[in-house]
């Protein structure tokens, strides 16, 4: 009966130990900046299209729903603020993290898992090269750097999406849309979003590299590891989101 609980705690411990090991190799791995750049490209640039597309749709939905809600109180001119705050503080970091887990996280896990399955990681160890430094650390750092950038792009596109619907379609005044946003959104909101996306970046990248590195070295094992990456990243993101939101509202 206690078994699943114990397993979960053991797993958390393993992940934490792995994080310590990866962190220890992050600085040395910077000696090969090209590896890091390649991974930022991998995690970031390749997720760009999907992040932009989803940002647009989320922004458009915000425009519709926000307008419908705000006009009941006669304050539809606040649509710009509502959309911007919703995106910057909440939807931007969270949805980007979920997309990241699905697009970049899975590809990290399957890539590292495949290296495990084809003995590439073992071969590196036998050649006296630490695979955590060479393979894991650049991917981990690349994910952490890519996440806030992707979030920022998601937010910008999202705000324009809300404007497209709010101003273009349902007729909020363009001046009030932008001026209220400018007056109400300040650096604390931006900071909250930035810190959230950094935390999600650490969580999602860590889960992706952990699952890949510890995948069962078979085709089936790599598939299972990929699934676990998405599930754990999503759960962890939403859990962290609640904790961070609570912390920011308190302060």
């Amino acid at each position, binding site marked *: 009966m206690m078994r699943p609980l114990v397993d979960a705690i053991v797993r958390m411990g393993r992940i934490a130990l792995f994080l310590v090991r990866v962190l220890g190799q992050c600085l040395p791995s910077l000696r090969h900046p090209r590896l890091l750049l390649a991974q930022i490209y991998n995690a970031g640039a390749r997720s760009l299209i999907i992040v932009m597309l989803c940002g647009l749709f989320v922004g458009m939905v915000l425009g519709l729903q926000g307008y419908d809600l705000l006009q009941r109180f006669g304050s539809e001119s606040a649509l710009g603020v509502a959309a911007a705050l919703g995106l910057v503080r909440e939807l931007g970091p969270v949805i980007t993290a979920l997309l990241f887990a699905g697009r970049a996280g899975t590809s990290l896990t399957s890539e590292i898992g495949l*290296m495990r399955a084809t*003995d590439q990681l*073992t071969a590196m160890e*036998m*050649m*006296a*090269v630490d695979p955590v430094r*060479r393979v894991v650390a650049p991917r981990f750092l690349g994910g952490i750097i890519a996440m806030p950038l992707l979030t920022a792009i998601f937010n910008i596109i999202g705000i324009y999406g809300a404007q497209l619907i709010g101003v273009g379609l349902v007729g909020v005044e363009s001046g009030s849309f932008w001026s209220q946003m400018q007056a109400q959104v300040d650096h604390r909101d931006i900071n909250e979003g930035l810190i959230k996306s950094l935390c999600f970046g650490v969580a999602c990248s860590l889960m992706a590299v952990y699952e890949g590195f510890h995948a069962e070295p078979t085709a089936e094992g790599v598939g299972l590891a990929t699934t676990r990456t998405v599930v754990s990243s999503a759960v962890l993101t939403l859990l962290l989101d609640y904790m961070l939101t609570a912390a920011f509202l308190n302060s």
Partner: protein
Amino acid sequence: MGVSPTAEAVVEVSDLRYAIDGRSIFDGLNLRALRGQVTAVMGPSGTGKTTLLRLLMGAIEPGDGRITVFGEEVARLARPALYGLRRRIGMLFQNGALMSDLSVFENVAFPLRAHTRLPEPLLRRLVLMKLQAVGLRGAADMAPAELSGGMARRVALARAIVMDPELLIYDEPFVGLDPISLGVILRLIQTLNATLGITSIVVTHDVEEISRIAHQSYLLAGGRAAAAGSPAELLRAATPAVNQFMRGLPDGPVPFHVPAPDYRSQLLAVDR
């Protein structure tokens, strides 16, 4: 051939015991690989041949007994010393284990780039020389995915020798190769051993192939060396286990049938 008492043992395994999840893999294994010789480690599937290699390389620790490589006890080494030891050893993996995101050239250059600060022109020359030795200089710019199985293994061999190791370990080098590639690999192992004096350990179950080049052979069975000697001596050996393996007989001490309930009664019971 045979064991000369004066030759120095590069690898020495004494009274090795190792178990996974309570299942004994090695139970008092003794084995020596002498400098400059080709030592074959043979055995049926599942006798722990690959486990032995992992033990030799210090990837896992023995339950009991000693493994020394170049006179150092592997299990006692901390990670930096272990990595130092591994730089003197080349290893050829069964499937090549080439880095899929690097070209053939970069794969062979990988250990050099990781461990040395050679100027680029010198490094390029070294890599080209090693590729020439395995006959694949013309494939330098290809990706590992474009190579056939035999070619991938030759690239992996070039990578294994690029640091000029003193000891070369081959894990099942003949598995899944066509006769031509097999002949090429066989000749390469022999040439490397003869011309560079590299001590070689070949783990395999291809009796015929390895018997042509091995100086000393060990046959693993039941967690220990069931027989040791030159290939010719092993072929003459009278014990049933050795005989079955060397001649490839389907039934013997290693049974053809997996343990099962009585055949007749199980067939009859199907109707009920």
